[in-house]
C-alpha cells in the first residue's frame, strides 16, 4: 500500500528540505565572532606560554600546598599601585585623544598619503619589533633551534609580507589579509598584557570611558572624524577587520553614509537587520518598518537578485532567496545605516562603520575612485580586537576560569552592542559594553564563583 510504503522511510530523512530562516540567519555575527575568538585564543595561548602569573590563584596555591609546601609569592610588585595605574591610564587616554585629533586634522587637510604612510609605518613596526620580541621569547621558551642568520632573514620578510597584506586587501587573498590583521592585534594585545596588573585594568576602564565620550559627545574626536568622512563620502584610511570577503572587483571598500531609503525588502542573511526588524515591530515603531535594505550581489547573481527583488515580498520565491544565500560564498551585502564607530589611537583602531544601503541598480562596477560601491558586512576596528584580547589575556594570568567567564562576557557584550545598534540606529562605541561586562564577570568570578566551584569540585560534587 502506498501509505505503508511511504511511512516506511525513516522519519526525518524525508523531511521537507526547504530552507528555513534558521539556515542562514546569524551568519554575519558568527563571521565576526570567529576572528574575535581566534584573536583571544591566540593571546591566551601566548600569555600562558610566556608569562608568569602575577598572583597565583587559590587553585594553584592549593595544589602546591598539597604537594608539600611551595612558598606563597607576594601579591604584586612594589610599583604597581592604584595611583600610578590611574596616572598611567589617564596619560594614555590623553595621548590617544591627541592622536585622534591629529588624525582628524590630517583627514581634514586631505592629506591621505600621510595617513597611509603612518598606517604602513605603524603596522610594520608592530610586526617587526613586537613580532620579533614575541618570536624571540617563544624560541627561548620552546627551545626551538634557529640560528641568528635565519632569524634575521625570516623576520623582516614575514613582517613586510604581513604588513603589505594588512594594508592592501585587494592584492592578497582575503584569508591572508584577515590573518595579518589578527596577527597585528594579537601582538599588540600581548604587549599590553605585559603591563602591571592594576595599570592594565585602569587602562581598559579608561579606554572604555574614552570611547563613550569620543563617540557620543558632540566635541568628541571620533564624532568629528566620522562627520568629516560622511560629508565627503570618503573612507578613513585605517586598519579594519572586515567580516565578509572583499569583492575583488572593487579596488577599495568605500563605505557610504547615506540616508536610509524607503521601501525595499528585508535581507534574510543579515542578522542585525532581523534584530532591528524584530525590535522595531515589537515596540511598534513605525519608522523602523522601512529598513530600506537592498542587497547588492556579485555579478553572477545580479540577474537572480534582480528577479527576486522585483517581486514584492509576498511573492518572492523561496527558492531564489535560499539559493542566493546558500550558493554564494561572497555575497556582497549591505546593512542598514547602523553606524558604530570606534576610532583608535594610531590607525589600529578604526571607525567601525557599518555599510550603507546602496541602490542595487546603481551599482558602479568600476574599480577606482570614490564610487558607489558595495561593501561588506560588519566591520570591527582592530582596537576592539586588541582591548578585548587584553582583558582576556589579563584574566588568563590569573586562572582559566576567569578566561572562560570573561570570554563569554565579551561575546555577550558584542552581541548587546549589535542589538543596541539595531535599536538606536546611530553611532555607538563598541568597547564599553564588552569591557564593562568583562570586568564585572572577572570580579564576580574571582570573588564568588571560584570559591564555590572549588568547594564543589574538590569534593567531587557536581550538579
Amino acid at each position, binding site marked *: 500500500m502506498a501509505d505503508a510504503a511511504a511511512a516506511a522511510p525513516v522519519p526525518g530523512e524525508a523531511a521537507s528540505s526547504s530552507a528555513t530562516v534558521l539556515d542562514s540567519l546569524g551568519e554575519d555575527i558568527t563571521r565576526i565572532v570567529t576572528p574575535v575568538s581566534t584573536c583571544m585564543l591566540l593571546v591566551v595561548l601566548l600569555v600562558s606560554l610566556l608569562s608568569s602569573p602575577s598572583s597565583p590563584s587559590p587553585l594553584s596555591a592549593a595544589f602546591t600546598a598539597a604537594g608539600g609546601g611551595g612558598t606563597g609569592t607576594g601579591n604584586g610588585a612594589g610599583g604597581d599601585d592604584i595611583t600610578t595605574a590611574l596616572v598611567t591610564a589617564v596619560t594614555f587616554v590623553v595621548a590617544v585623544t591627541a592622536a585622534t585629533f591629529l588624525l582628524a586634522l590630517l583627514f581634514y587637510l586631505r592629506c591621505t598619503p600621510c595617513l597611509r604612510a603612518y598606517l604602513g609605518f605603524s603596522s610594520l613596526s608592530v610586526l617587526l619589533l613586537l613580532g620579533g620580541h614575541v618570536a624571540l621569547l617563544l624560541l627561548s621558551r620552546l627551545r626551538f633551534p634557529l640560528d641568528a642568520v635565519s632569524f634575521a632573514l625570516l623576520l623582516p620578510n614575514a613582517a613586510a609580507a604581513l604588513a603589505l597584506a594588512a594594508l592592501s586587501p585587494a592584492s592578497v587573498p582575503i584569508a591572508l589579509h584577515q590573518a595579518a590583521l589578527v596577527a597585528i592585534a594579537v601582538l599588540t594585545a600581548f604587549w599590553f598584557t605585559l603591563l602591571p596588573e592594576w595599570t592594565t585594568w585602569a587602562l581598559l576602564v579608561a579606554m572604555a570611558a574614552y570611547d563613550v565620550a569620543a563617540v557620543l559627545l558632540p566635541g568628541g574626536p571620533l564624532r568629528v572624524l566620522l562627520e568629516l568622512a560622511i560629508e565627503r563620502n570618503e573612507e578613513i584610511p585605517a586598519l579594519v577587520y572586515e567580516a565578509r570577503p572583499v569583492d575583488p572587483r572593487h579596488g577599495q571598500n568605500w563605505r557610504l553614509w547615506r540616508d536610509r531609503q524607503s521601501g525595499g525588502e528585508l535581507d534574510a542573511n543579515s542578522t542585525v537587520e532581523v534584530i532591528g526588524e524584530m525590535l522595531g515591530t515589537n515596540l511598534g515603531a513605525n519608522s523602523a518598518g522601512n529598513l530600506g535594505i537592498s542587497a547588492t550581489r556579485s555579478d553572477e547573481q545580479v540577474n537572480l537578485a534582480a528577479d527576486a527583488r522585483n517581486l514584492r515580498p509576498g511573492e518572492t520565491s523561496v527558492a531564489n532567496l535560499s539559493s542566493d544565500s546558500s550558493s554564494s560564498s561572497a555575497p556582497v551585502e549591505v546593512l542598514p545605516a547602523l553606524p558604530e564607530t570606534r576610532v583608535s589611537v594610531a590607525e589600529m583602531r578604526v571607525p567601525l562603520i557599518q555599510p550603507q544601503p546602496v541602490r542595487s541598480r546603481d551599482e558602479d562596477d568600476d574599480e577606482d575612485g570614490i564610487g558607489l560601491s558595495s561593501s561588506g558586512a560588519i566591520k570591527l576596528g582592530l582596537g576592539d580586537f586588541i582591548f578585548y584580547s587584553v582583558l582576556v589575556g589579563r584574566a588568563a594570568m590569573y586562572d582559566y576560569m576567569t578566561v572562560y567567564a570573561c570570554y563569554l562576557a565579551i561575546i555577550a557584550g558584542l552581541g548587546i552592542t549589535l542589538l543596541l545598534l539595531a535599536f538606536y540606529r546611530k553611532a555607538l562605541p563598541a568597547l564599553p559594553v564588552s569591557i564593562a561586562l568583562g570586568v564585572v564577570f572577572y570580579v564576580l568570578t574571582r570573588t564568588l564563583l571560584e570559591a564555590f566551584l572549588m568547594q564543589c569540585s574538590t569534593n567531587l560534587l*557536581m550538579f
Partner: protein
Amino acid sequence: MTVAAGLGYALIALGPALSIFAGVVARKPFLVLTLLTSTLFWLISLIILSGIWRVFLPITSGAWWPYVILILTSVAFQEGIRLVFWRLYKKMEEMLDSFADRISKPRLCLTDKMLISLAGGLGHGVAHAVFFCLSLLTPAFGRATFYVERCSRMPFFLISAVIALGFLVIHTFSMIVAFNGYDERKRSDQVFAPVVHLIASVMTLMNLAPDGCVIGTPLLCVMSAVTLQYCWRMVWQRLSEHQHRQFNS
C-alpha cells in the same frame, strides 16, 4: 602529567560536545549563537548560586548535610531557571516566525526547534563541563598528577572528567526532552529533566564517602545512558508522528 594527559582529560570531558558542535551546531550559525547564549545564561545561574552560597563557604565541617543542602538548592534553582530559559526561547521563536512571515520563508519546522533545544542543552552541558572540570585542569598540563583521599584509585582529573562527561550528556539531552515537554504539555517529559538532574546530583553525593566514587561514577554513566535512551525514544516518536501527520494532511 604533561600536555598529552591534560589534553586527554579535556577531551574526555568535552569530546562528545566537540563532535556535536562540529557535526550539527557549526553548520547553522544561528545554533552557534544559541550555544553561546545558553552557555552565558547557565554561567550567570552559577554565579548567582555562588553569590547566594558565598557566605556559607568554605564548608570546613566534615559532615555531609551541608553538602546535601547545597546540592538540593542548586538543582532547584537551576531547574527554576530552565523555565525562564524556556520563556526566552518562546519569545525568540515568535520573533523568528514573524520575521519568516515577513520575508515569506517557511516558519521554523519541528527539526529546527529540536536543533535549537539541542544547542541550548549543549550550552548547559558545556557550561557545566567547562566550569566544573576544565577550569581545574590547568595543573594537569604540568608534570605531576593529583589524587584526592576520598577517591584514591584514579587521578582526580580523570574522575572529574568522567563526571563532567556524564553531566554533559544528561544536560544536553534532557533539555531536548524538557523543551518538548513544555511544547506539547506532556507531564512525563516536563518532570523528566528535573528528576534526572536531581538523581544525578544526589548520586555525586556518594563521592563524599571514602571510595564512594567507585559506585557513584558508574551509576552516573547509567543515568546518562537512560537520558540518552529516553530522548532518543521521544524524538523518534515525535518525528514519526509529525511525518505521518504531514503525509496524511
